[in-house]
């Protein structure tokens, strides 16, 4: 390390009115142009660390000790006015939520140009030229026009490009990016990261990347700092610190990453399927705009066929807007079905009477994505878990609740607590207990682990698998996370804009992705895979594309064509 651009010495941050520290003595150094990743689970203090550098701690947070040297200058010593000269001009910053980090009331041009005018005093024309140039570098279509638009006119990925462009416009020596791509879909995430890395490289800008995603760090960064509960766990080059970890916590993190475990494919089930769906269509009624006119409903699912055997786990994969969640909800009567047939155990649900349908419905349970939202905050755990039980005595109810809780690994102590007293993982266990107490045949698990930290995620996934082995129910497992799907699924369906583009047994699909969309999806994810006694980072190697005629974008229709062994892919009609 020649000369350090940024060096942090013994930084400690706490909150007003509390002795406890949220950041407990971080030391860190970055060379010019270097890319450093800071990883950690929630509560690790990584965001506070990032904000402290520019003196932008949230209200209540205080720097208790430590120095932050930038270019040899102690930032903590600077007057507000001098510090403002560093902000933006020398150090740029990008935040996680593209929806709220651009000011909705100002045009893109104004927000981009603001820094240039302030720090470099350029003329309006010059500002405009530089802005267009930078947007071009970020591959924004029709950059000149973008300047006169407002943030809400852009998608999340576009906004994040604009955000990063605006931060890099002043050619800062350091860019701090706090989870810049977490809210984005994987394909978009890859585009944004690639563009950012390229721009940083061009400008010689150092990158401090804050993220929870080990794959991203391994993919983008040269060095890494792992944090846990405010402590620096380990620090150093990505290889070996991340790829051949000696530190137990880092090892735990890496081992928790979801990945295929063993070669285990569900037996081809000759028995009649538990669930069978034919040509399911869902359309959401449009919001009424006039007095009398109601525009046509917005179709979300365009005729899905699906069948699921007992004890099988079928995963639905797709980006946001693919319709995967809607499919799950439609099964449970939570989304308006516009057409098609759903039958459970051979019984067509549409032909049943309301009570029969309700009784049948109890055999299908759901585990929701957000464990904070899926438990009524005013109910105690025992009541939540036992909510679905009807016609049982109080004693029986208590017994069954206790059994369900112990099934999901929660002891007696939890029954009388409220949801807010539980951690995220514990809540998700409660949600699972609520589902299994009904002795269901099928559990729809909608992104059950995506709100959880990676270590907790691993525990919940193995719990789900374990429960399935013991109780024998089927899962319809919905996730955007390919790694998770690869770990749990027997079969996988890939959805794109309401169509199934590819489906097949897990190994078939992951090893031989055929549809261009599936391939793009897989190629976008940076992964860390075991490699001997260490790990290896990078993108999944794809087999050569199958020369299948008529593979088309889904908008142009097409039908699912069988390749082999239940592996189907959408192609043009023969």
């Amino acid at each position, binding site marked *: 390390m020649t000369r350090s651009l940024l060096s942090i010495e013994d930084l400690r941050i706490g909150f007003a009115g509390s002795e406890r520290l949220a950041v407990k003595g971080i030391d860190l150094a970055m060379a010019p142009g270097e890319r450093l990743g800071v990883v950690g689970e929630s509560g690790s203090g990584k965001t506070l660390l990032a*904000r402290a550098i*520019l003196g*932008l701690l*949230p*209200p209540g947070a205080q720097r208790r000790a430590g120095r932050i040297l930038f270019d040899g200058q102690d930032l903590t010593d600077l007057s*507000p*006015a001098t510090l*403002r*000269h*560093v*902000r*933006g*001009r020398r*150090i*740029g*910053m990008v*935040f*996680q*939520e593209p929806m*709220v*980090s*651009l*000011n*909705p*009331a*100002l045009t893109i041009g104004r927000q981009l140009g*603001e*820094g240039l005018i*302030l*720090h470099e005093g350029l003329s309006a024309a010059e500002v405009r030229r530089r802005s267009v140039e930078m947007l071009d570098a970020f591959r924004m279509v029709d950059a000149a026009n973008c300047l006169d638009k*407002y943030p*809400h006119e852009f998608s999340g990925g576009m906004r994040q490009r604009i*955000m990063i462009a*605006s*931060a890099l416009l*002043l050619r800062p020596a350091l860019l701090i990016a706090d989870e810049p791509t977490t809210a984005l879909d994987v394909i978009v995430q890859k585009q944004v990261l690639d563009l950012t890395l390229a721009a940083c490289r061009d400008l010689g800008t150092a990158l401090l990347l804050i993220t929870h995603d080990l794959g991203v760090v391994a993919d983008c960064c040269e060095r890494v700092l792992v944090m846990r509960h405010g402590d620096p766990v380990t620090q150093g080059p990505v290889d070996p610190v991340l790829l051949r970890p000696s530190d137990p916590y880092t090892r735990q993190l890496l081992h928790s990453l979801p990945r295929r475990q063993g070669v285990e494919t569900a037996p081809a089930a000759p028995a009649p399927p538990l669930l069978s769906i034919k040509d399911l269509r869902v359309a959401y009624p449009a919001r009424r*705009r*006039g*007095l009398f006119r109601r525009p046509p409903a917005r179709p979300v699912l365009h005729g899905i066929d699906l069948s699921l055997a007992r004890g099988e786990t079928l995963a639905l994969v797709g980006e946001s807007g693919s319709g995967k969640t809607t499919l799950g909800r439609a099964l449970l009567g939570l989304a308006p079905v516009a057409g098609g047939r759903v039958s459970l155990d051979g019984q067509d649900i549409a032909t049943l009477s309301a009570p029969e349908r309700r009784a049948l419905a109890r055999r299908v349970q759901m585990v929701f994505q957000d464990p904070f939202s899926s438990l009524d905050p005013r109910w105690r755990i025992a009541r939540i878990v036992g909510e679905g039980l009807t016609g049982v005595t109080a004693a029986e109810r208590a017994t069954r609740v206790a059994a369900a809780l112990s099934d999901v690994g929660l002891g007696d102590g939890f029954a009388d607590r409220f949801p807010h007293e539980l951690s995220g993982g514990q809540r998700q266990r409660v949600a699972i207990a609520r589902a299994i107490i009904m002795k269901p045949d099928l559990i729809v698990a909608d992104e059950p682990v995506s709100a959880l930290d990676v270590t907790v995620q691993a525990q919940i996934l193995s719990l789900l698998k374990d429960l399935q082995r013991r109780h024998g129910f089927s899962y319809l497992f919905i996730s955007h996370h390919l790694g998770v799907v690869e770990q749990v699924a027997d079969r996988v369906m890939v959805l794109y804009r309401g169509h199934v583009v590819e489906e097949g047994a897990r190994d078939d699909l992951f090893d031989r992705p055929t549809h261009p969309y599936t391939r793009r999806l897989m190629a976008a994810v940076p992964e860390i895979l075991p490699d001997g006694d260490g790990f290896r980072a990078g993108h999944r190697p794809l087999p050569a594309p199958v020369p299948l005629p008529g593979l088309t974008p889904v908008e142009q229709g097409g039908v699912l064509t069988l390749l082999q062994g239940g592996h189907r892919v959408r192609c043009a009609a023969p």
Partner: protein
Amino acid sequence: MGAYLLRRCLMTLPTLLIVAVIVFLLMRLVPGDPVSVMVGDMADPATIAAITRNLGLDQPLPVQFLHWLGNILTGDFGTSITTGEAVLPAMLHRLGVTAQIVLISMTLAMLIAVPAGMLAAWRQNKGTDMVITGLLVLFISVPSFWVGLLLILLFGVELGWLPTVGYVAITDDPLRGLLYLILPCASLVLVEMGVVARMMRSGMIDVLRLDYITHARAKGLAEGPVLWRHAFPNAFAPTLTFIGLLLGSLLGGAVVIETVFTLPGLGRFLVDAIEARDYPVIQGCLLLVAMIRILVNLAVDLAYPLLDPRVQL
């Protein structure tokens, strides 16, 4: 844009119709009838019946309603039963008085309240904020009519500096007209200021937490531009909606202040009309007030995109 405008205007129609029905029915439920007030204790039943017939008050309710509604659609709010004045011009005249007070006090209140609210939010939980919020909660806790009475006691009775009651049209005598407005406006300003500043403060606090403010600071912007350029438009938008609501209600709801200072405003007109069972005036006033409020809301809705481009026309 034009189509939206039209649609948005059309959407107010059912509301207006229901308002009209409410107004009409409410007044027909009222005990006592206008004719007895007109004739006093001197008349006999025959006269009363004749006058009732002449005023059309003996017709079935739906007929009276349709008749009334039809007239209103042509701009005819009828004539006051007690004074024989045409209701619409009389109401507009009174509305002018109320509007002066409400608009002047609201303008003053906003000029003080918006910066005060922003300052308090900016210095949240610091000394400045404590002082400002303390004052604001005091302002909203003191009823305007009591403030009015105290002002009368102080400036009218004790000091004798200002006229305490009555009204001179500004158009008749600008200087004296203004003098008569000082105390009523002053009593309204306090409360309005309290309400608006609290609204502004909480809106501002919400906005100041958002990433784009941190982002603006991270760009090196000084606090002035951060507050005024970035935070203000976003924080002011909900406050504007609220001020619209407040204006709409004050135009009819300043009745208490009008009573304290005996101003010939719209609210007082309505209260007097209720006393005299002057149906056309009561109906006209209630309808006018509701219409104003609906129109102000409409105007605010239409102005909203100027502050918040996310809201599309």
